């Protein structure tokens, strides 16, 4: 019905890979957050791990506040790595398939002993410089896409809503400038 209103082909233009892969993935990301919240009342974000882990190797005063949570944040991060690896072993490797999952054609797939690994084509300097700014910005800005984007928006926090709009708008402008400069991939 929506497709008819927008005209034939509009949905395919807006969502060339469909929406089910994204919706299912998003629900699981939310569910992971909820599992931790139900048991612990902790609203876990992903970027605090960067500073809490630095407290193991640096005596900087700024990192001290994260000492009490640094052990479980490592477990949370290892869980994220492991969960993505389970996805790689199943859906990415083609061992399991579903009508809800679209494989896509980004990056490069490589076979490593029965496991299909995925590698990005985005240039290392973009990842490193971008990562550097992500590390600075998420910690100064009090959260990232999971802390502000999932937990904060889910909490209807004005601070997080402003944070999300800020990083989303700036990221859209940045990505379009980079693309217009012909920098690819």
């Amino acid at each position, binding site marked *: 019905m929506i497709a008819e209103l927008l005209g034939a082909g509009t949905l395919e233009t807006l969502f060339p890979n469909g929406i089910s892969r994204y919706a299912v993935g*998003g629900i699981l990301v939310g569910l992971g957050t909820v599992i931790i919240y139900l048991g612990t*009342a902790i609203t876990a974000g992903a970027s605090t791990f960067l500073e809490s882990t630095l407290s193991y190797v640096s005596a900087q005063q700024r990192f001290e506040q994260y000492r009490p949570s640094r052990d479980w944040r490592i477990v949370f991060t290892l869980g994220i790595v492991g969960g993505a*690896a389970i996805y790689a072993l199943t859906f990415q490797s083609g061992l399991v398939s579903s009508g809800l999952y679209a494989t896509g054609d*980004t990056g490069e797939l490589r076979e490593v002993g029965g496991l299909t690994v995925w590698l990005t084509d985005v240039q290392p300097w973009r*990842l490193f410089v971008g990562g550097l700014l992500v590390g600075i910005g998420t910690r100064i800005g009090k959260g990232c896409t999971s802390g502000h984007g999932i937990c904060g928006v889910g909490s209807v926090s*004005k601070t997080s809503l*402003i944070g999300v709009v800020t990083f989303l708008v700036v*990221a859209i402008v940045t990505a379009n400038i980079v693309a217009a400069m012909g920098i690819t991939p």
Partner: protein
Amino acid sequence: MSRHPLFMPLILIGGLVFGFGLGFSHMARPEVVLDFLTFEDFGLLFVMFGGSIIAGLAFWVVPQLRSSAPLTGRPYGRRLKSFDRNVLVGGSIFGVGWGLSGICPGAAYASLGVGNVTILWALAGMFLGAYIQGVWRSQSSRTESAVPGDD
């Protein structure tokens, strides 16, 4: 500090589901994030809204059923952070980094899990960035505390 024996296993299970979702949605792929930011594929909206709606439902319903969490005794609440200029400054710096690289912290951990070793460049950058702001802010807070103040 003693913790409930199920505390760490629960954190691990939550992380596994979270990371599987990031892999399945392809948000762990920088290309997909960059396609979203340049209006090629709006699918990522469903990851953000899907995730925040599920979390929002729990944050809204659970506190009405129970007052504190079984494994920690912590009171159930929402994630509310104070607003100040840092939210705008930090958010903007994060936005430039996200728009340049197509990767954010949680997605970077998941990207490593799908076999993308190239993402170690981004993770190295994130740790360095977090360290730089930590050194910088540790110094400025020492300077501030040397001056008597009320806050």
